[in-house]
């Protein structure tokens, strides 16, 4: 049976010191939105060394495309914004074992989906906005 391996893939990328940001609905999930997705979208830093590290992880583990859907490694999102433009709007989240990943902030994710205007992005907005509101009432994540 096919397996969803989002956490495993993030762990591999972090272990290999790939510079990347989690974006899209996986970012929403990490922030606590009760949504689901079959894609793991990341924006990687487009330096030759980093691209080489990314390709090494992807080719070594056959994780670019699976029966679950695509692992989308994006150079940019949201009208051409890349790693350098987005990194200031991310938060660091810890995985088990102390590995850290950078995740697009929930407010920035909402802004990007509003700007996209695509029906699938607009449909996600009520739950993302409600998550942001609920999150603002709580202490920071313990992850």
């Amino acid at each position, binding site marked *: 049976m096919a397996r969803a391996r989002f956490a495993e893939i993030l762990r591999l990328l972090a272990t290999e010191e790939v510079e990347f940001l989690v974006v899209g609905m996986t970012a929403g999930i990490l922030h606590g939105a009760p949504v689901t997705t*079959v894609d793991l979208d990341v924006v990687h830093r487009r330096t030759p060394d980093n691209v080489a590290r990314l390709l090494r992880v992807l080719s070594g583990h056959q994780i670019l495309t699976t029966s679950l859907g695509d692992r989308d490694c994006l150079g940019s999102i949201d009208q051409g914004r890349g790693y350098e433009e987005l990194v200031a709007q991310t938060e660091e989240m810890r995985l088990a074992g102390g590995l850290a990943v950078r995740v697009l902030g929930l407010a920035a994710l909402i802004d990007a989906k509003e700007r996209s205007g695509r029906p699938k992005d607009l449909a996600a907005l009520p739950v993302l906005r409600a998550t942001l509101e609920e999150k603002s009432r709580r202490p920071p994540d313990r*992850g």
Partner: protein
Amino acid sequence: MSGPSPAGESRPPEPDVDANGVDRAQIRAMLALTPEERLRHVEEFVEAALEIRELNGTGPIR
């Protein structure tokens, strides 16, 4: 998807649906988890959905 329950609890939280139809109880249940636990919860849900699709001869989700 149904909201996660903290370990040891058998019943999901009572729904608390707002004016937009969003169940705030599900959000609060997710926020009670660590980020990695949230991801694992979704992985379990996706795997269950995929298993049902495979049992019914349907292809990959796109």
